[in-house]
């Protein structure tokens, strides 16, 4: 899990994915002698050419993570910020953050309960919107804050990866888990299909890199590899549990951006059965992936999503299951092998 540790710990809010890119280039080129491509937006690609009569399969995941960026400074030296990606303001107060690639430490300020008690009861439990928060970096003036963290500086959460055995703790498993799985499948799988490893930028701010990736390689099939939301919490009804951490690879039948072609999803389910891999459905029609953009390209692009349920995604810290991570790699390899062998026609 050393690669996943590195990927989880590096700095990579939308538009600032270079550290993630560097880790991936280092890992893949250490395993095989292969050139990489970087497009004008910063997405990273590797291509392993197969036979001409075999399909082009793109393994896609995004490098960016939800983060924050500086939009202003208060007269007393606090940083004002906005979210880069879909952040839940409930999880922000009191969190430790790192600002810019220099990793300047800061804390998202919150008033202590002693002060809250002076507020009317009706206001105490209300969630403060993102724009109502500020980051304390220990600066004493606006000028000092500007010199340390000017506007548009990206910010990430200060979370270190930890291996707890079966459970892994870290940040940005959405979608460093996907990047990790792609890097493994790409470097480990022998196939006659052309494989494209696509590590896109800017998914969290509107799937910005997806269109270019699909247009560049015109894949016959895109396999999206994702860390998705798990909702297996004590107070969540069974039918509202999006996915369960440890419940096996998540097969999406539909989300807010795409309906997965049923025959491809069924072929994936069949593959999981053959391999003895327990799988689960994404039980809510929520969220979206790069597939939602890629499906429109090249006169229609077939996409499928394989994910692992991660608890607390889009928050400062996430948990995921090691066996889920390994099983999405195993399932993806087996599925591509069946396409290669002609057992599955896409």
């Amino acid at each position, binding site marked *: 899990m050393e690669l996943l540790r590195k990927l989880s710990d590096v700095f990579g809010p939308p538009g600032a994915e270079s550290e993630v890119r560097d880790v991936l280039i280092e890992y893949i080129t250490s395993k095989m002698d292969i050139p990489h491509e970087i497009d004008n937006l910063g997405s990273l690609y590797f291509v392993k050419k197969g036979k001409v009569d075999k399909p082009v399969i793109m393994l896609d995941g995004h490098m960016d993570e939800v983060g924050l960026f500086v939009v202003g400074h208060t007269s007393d030296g606090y940083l004002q910020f906005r979210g880069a990606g879909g952040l839940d303001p409930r999880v922000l107060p009191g969190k430790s953050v790192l600002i810019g690639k220099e990793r300047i430490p800061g804390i998202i300020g919150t008033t202590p309960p002693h002060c809250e008690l002076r507020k009317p009861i009706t206001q105490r439990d209300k969630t403060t919107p993102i724009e109502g928060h500020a980051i304390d970096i220990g600066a004493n003036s606006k000028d000092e804050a500007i010199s340390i963290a000017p506007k548009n500086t990206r910010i990430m959460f200060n979370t270190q990866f930890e291996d707890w055995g079966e459970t892994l703790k870290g940040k940005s498993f959405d979608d460093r888990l996907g990047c990790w799985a792609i890097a493994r499948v790409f470097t480990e799988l022998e196939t006659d299909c052309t494989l494209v490893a696509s590590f896109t930028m800017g998914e969290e701010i509107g799937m910005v890199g997806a269109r270019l990736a699909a247009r560049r390689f015109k894949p016959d099939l895109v396999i999206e590899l994702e860390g998705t939301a798990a909702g297996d919490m004590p107070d969540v009804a*069974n039918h509202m549990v999006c996915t369960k951490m440890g419940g096996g690879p998540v097969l999406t*039948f*539909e989300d807010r951006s795409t309906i997965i*072609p049923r025959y491809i999803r069924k072929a994936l389910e069949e593959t999981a059965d053959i391999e003895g891999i327990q799988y689960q459905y994404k*039980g809510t*029609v929520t969220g979206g992936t790069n597939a939602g953009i890629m499906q*429109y*390209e090249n*006169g*229609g692009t077939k996409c499928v999503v394989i994910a692992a349920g991660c608890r607390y995604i889009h928050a400062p810290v996430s948990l995921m299951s090691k066996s889920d991570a390994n099983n999405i790699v195993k399932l993806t390899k087996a599925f591509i092998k069946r396409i290669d062998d002609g057992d599955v026609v896409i």
Partner: protein
Amino acid sequence: MIDTINKLIHIHSPSGSENLLGEVVTESLAPKICEMDFMGNLTCRVEGEGTKVLIVSSMDEPSLVATYIESDGFIRFYPSGNLRISDVLGRQVVFPSGISGYVGVENNMDIKEITGFDKLFIDIGTKNKKQSAEYVDIGDHTSFNIPTRAEDNSILGRDDLKLPIAVSIATANEVGQTQNNLVFAYAVQDKIGGRGAAVITNKEKPDLIINLCVATATDTPVHKQKGSISIGAGPVLIADGSDIMRHYPTNNLIKEIASSSNIPLQVTVSNGLNVTEQRMNNIHAGIPLVTLAIPVRKYGKFGAIGDTRDAVDTSKLLTKILRKKLM
């Protein structure tokens, strides 16, 4: 026209499961060839030398998607398309297997407590999960079971009454070879964001799009006095709107043809957001687009009443438009 409408109007075509309707469309266009892509979009070509014109109509209806089956057989779902709780509660729905059921809620639940779709379920009368799973697969889309009737001047049914499809089929069968290169497209997944239409547009790269849809008629008792859009008063040209710019020269040509052919034409502007048209219009740096609609009175999300004469007149007008050299 009435025969075509009668063939189409009874068919359930929830978003993502438009295949049954697609089969009837293909049969209705025979011997012309229909191509189908992996999503289920259909295209039928009447080839010519000139401007490539894409005539788009959508095949799907708003629906519910099954997401979870409870141990006692009740089915949980998510709305697919822009639906509210009040649109679906108590409605009869039909799954692709043919089994029907009702959208229900706990008996003791006050209406104010129904704060989200998670409180609702579909009851298909089964006793347990295994029994339900025989009829319903996770990911299946339901459509809504609403009585349909198509007579000479009156059509009653759900959603858009399949009128854009009927008009498109009639026109494709009537138009013959013209000075334009025509592609009649029947798009899937329109109600969940114009997805099929976007894929077709991306693939065909047309010079001009004619979007065939329905316009909400407002000739109900109060509005009727104000000369709003009426059923039985002819096709509707949605000449412009707050969402996208329509192509003025083609709009003007449509008005001229309607006038010279004595086809009644109602002209209006759109004040809503048409995601499908935006998606199509935005592809390849903007494709000129016009919107031709059939007036339909809408009741709630599903109930609709139209007039066969409007469909006939829309097809006549569209046929004459397509026979002109466009752009």
